[in-house]
């Protein structure tokens, strides 16, 4: 692929960088990541989550600390401004990154290294049939306005997340709560309609985080029990979090955190270069790293993620309803070259919908590995000896632009002609996701354990294999975590052998920060971005 690998051999002049970031006006990759924050319904035993991030070590934070200034202001750059502060709103609202764990807290919390730990619930008892959970709340907890937290507030929140008002990503999962009641001021009893080993994990979601009822316009006001309160939201510009001095837990290591929002990654990088920012939450292209490497005032940190870049087919329509065609396309794809072009060899090639941090990971990259001759033979067998052409819808971003161009030139080698159709975010959602009106598409899927979507034949790629659906279903009610893992390993292998999609690679999680700050999380494994441990040298 001379075209794409050359791209990285030349230093990118400012002009090119702009054109690439200009295309982001049409689709901000972070927003897509959040929207496709496809929350999965499998994750069985909470204990399994321990393994979800086995790749990370310790607390998963980065940077070395000296004497820190306890009253520092930390300024964080992000291209993911929330559209609302309403915690029970889902979709691409981008508020989890700002609010979860910082302003609002759940009964349980998902840590950076993938564990479910107690937060507002000090402990809990589970009935032997697994249907009744009794949560004992932490004592001495107050909302940031001084009101004490009562069990009734928790009940109100849990009822709210499954109410009509809610569009929370976990609404469906949490709807297994048959009844929620306060036994006394510090005890909450939840009765489930069916056994669910993932229940404690579901409770870590933004929608289940406890908010003070009737605190004002829910779209712009949120009062929680977290280490910060919302100091102000200047729409289109920034959200300021101010330290909650009455916080019940350990005090944050800084006084104020400002999230500054950018429309454009280049503008964000410039702000970091000029010293306006302390930290950028996610670098969207390796090209910008050259500006920061070899400069002592910046630290580049690479962590793990669960973000998968996919080239999906509409498996229900011709020509993709033939497995030979799908396999041929996979074999005509040189994933390593794509990864090199997009991330300069950071990240990792994958062979199915499973990142290495999921317990059911197996290296399946040998299935339908790159082989143009075999791809041509498969196409001929499927009756497309004369070639094949189709349209690929995608939302342009740094990564997808390169992937799209790379696929175009790679597939051409096997006689496949693709027409690229860049669309904006909302159009993609409407056309591809909702109406299934597409042939193929490039999309980013962020969540852990989202393999289970292959068990849903109505999901946008319309992969329909009854055996896989049964395995996915059984894995959720499995008696042991081992059984669940075994079943989902089978699913991962089966979909790969069926070439249900063309899984390309796993994105790296790259952050760039000023050397003076430390303590930030380095992995992209949770929805939240916990800022309390971030310290700045005085």
């Amino acid at each position, binding site marked *: 692929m001379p075209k794409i690998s050359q791209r990285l051999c030349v230093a990118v002049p400012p002009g090119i960088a702009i054109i690439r970031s200009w295309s982001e006006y049409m689709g901000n990759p972070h927003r897509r990541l959040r*929207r496709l924050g496809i929350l999965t319904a499998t994750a069985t035993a909470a204990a399994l989550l321990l393994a979800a991030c086995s790749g990370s070590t310790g607390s998963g934070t980065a940077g070395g600390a000296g004497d820190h200034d306890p009253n520092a202001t930390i300024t964080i750059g992000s291209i993911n401004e929330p559209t609302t502060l309403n915690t029970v709103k889902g979709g691409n609202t981008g508020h989890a990154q700002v609010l979860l764990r910082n302003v609002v807290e759940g009964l349980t919390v998902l840590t950076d290294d993938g564990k479910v730990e107690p937060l507002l619930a000090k402990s809990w008892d589970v009935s032997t049939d697994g249907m009744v959970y009794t949560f004992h709340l932490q004592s001495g907890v107050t909302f940031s306005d001084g009101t004490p937290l009562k069990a009734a507030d928790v009940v109100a929140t849990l009822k709210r997340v499954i109410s009509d008002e809610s569009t929370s990503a976990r609404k469906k999962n949490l709807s297994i709560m048959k009844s929620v009641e306060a036994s006394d001021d510090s005890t909450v009893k939840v009765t489930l309609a069916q056994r669910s080993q993932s229940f404690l994990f579901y409770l870590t979601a933004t929608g289940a985080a406890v908010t003070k009822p009737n605190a004002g316009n829910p779209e712009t006001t949120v009062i929680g029990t977290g280490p910060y309160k919302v100091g102000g939201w200047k729409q289109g510009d920034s959200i300021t979090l101010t330290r909650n001095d009455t916080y019940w837990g350990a005090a944050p290591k800084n006084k104020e955190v400002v999230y500054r929002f950018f429309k454009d990654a280049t503008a964000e990088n410039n702000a970091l270069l*000029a010293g306006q920012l302390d930290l950028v939450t996610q670098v969207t292209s390796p090209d910008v790293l050259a500006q920061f490497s070899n400069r002592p005032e910046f630290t580049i940190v690479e962590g793990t993620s669960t973000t998968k870049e996919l080239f999906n087919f509409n498996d229900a329509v011709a020509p993709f309803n033939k497995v030979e065609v799908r396999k041929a396309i996979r074999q005509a794809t040189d994933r390593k070259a794509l990864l090199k072009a997009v991330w300069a060899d950071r990240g990792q090639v994958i062979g199915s919908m499973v990142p290495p941090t999921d317990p059911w990971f197996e290296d399946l990259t040998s299935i339908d590995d790159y082989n143009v001759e075999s791809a041509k033979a498969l196409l001929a067998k499927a009756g497309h000896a004369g070639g094949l052409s189709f349209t690929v819808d995608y939302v342009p971003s740094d990564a997808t632009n390169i992937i799209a161009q790379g696929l175009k030139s790679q597939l051409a080698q096997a006689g496949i002609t693709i027409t690229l159709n860049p669309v904006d975010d*909302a159009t993609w959602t409407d056309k591809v996701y909702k109406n299934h009106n597409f042939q193929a598409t490039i999309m980013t899927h962020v969540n852990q354990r989202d393999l289970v979507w292959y068990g849903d034949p109505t999901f946008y790629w319309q992969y329909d294999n009854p055996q896989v659906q049964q395995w996915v279903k059984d894995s959720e009610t499995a008696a042991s975590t081992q059984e669940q893992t075994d079943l989902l390993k089978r699913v991962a292998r089966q979909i790969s052998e069926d070439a249900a999609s063309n899984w390309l690679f796993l994105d790296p999680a790259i952050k760039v920060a000023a050397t003076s700050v430390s303590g930030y999380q380095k992995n992209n494994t949770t929805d939240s971005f916990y800022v309390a441990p971030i310290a700045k040298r005085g």
Partner: protein
Amino acid sequence: MLAYLLRRVAWLVGALLLAGSAVFVLLRVLPGDPAVTLLPVGAPPEQIESIRHQLGTDRPLLTQYGEWFGGLFAGHLGDSLFTGIPVLDQITARLPVTLPLALTAFVLSIVVAVPVGVFAAVRRRGLAGVAVSGLAQIGIALPIFWIGIVVVWLVAVQWRLLPPGGFPRAGWAEPAAAIDSLILPVVTLTIAQAALLIRYVRSATLDVLNQDYLRTARALGYSLPRALWRHGLRNGAATVVSVLGVLLAGSLIGTVVIESVFALPGLGSLLLTSVKARDLPVVQGTVFLMTATVLLVGLAVDVIQRVIDPRLRGSA
């Protein structure tokens, strides 16, 4: 003149209604459902319907259209679908960034372009004149975001003279910081606008230079600057003024790009964000307001032209 004004205002109202309808229809034709963007992946169809109902986007288009126009006459542009904040409040909150930016750039580009354009015309055969019109041509050809990025890279990132973007959180309560943060955006927008205007001024001046009356004035002993001042300015101005409306529209549209490049929380970035989120009332309100501004300026330009050029008055 009064009859003319009345007729023009009536025309303006008609044009506004038409523009409002166009905006409304275009946004509905555009793919992308605001309800879907609010929902998580995997949401069942009945939930989409329920959100649509909550947002009010499930009602007949004519009802929504009537409601929007009704609100318009009452001075209410609707509320954001996502935050519930009145659109007018959102727009007002962004004006302290966009107004100074667009207006300063507009005025500056006139101040720069008129003398430079006249100079380029008078010295059209000299090296300086050719250089000016060449540079102006390049300025027109370069995309505005490219100019912006180069300016940021040089002045803010390399030389560290000014901030690369952003607006102080306290806004104009920190006047020095606010001005600092607007200098580069204004310069960028001015470069793009002045380049265009220089071309117009230059050709208008060339036109005037070739007129008989100017030759006569020179023959009567006027110096060239004096002849241009006494007889050329008014004649040339009519052409140039007619471009100003287009220029102001360009300034407003330019803010969409400029505010992204410079991370400014202005009207342009509000428009961009709400288009992407399909926050229909906000897009409608913002576009409508921008359209109204451009139409009003167009009217002002026409009136000014009639004041400058008496010949136009009879023809109405």
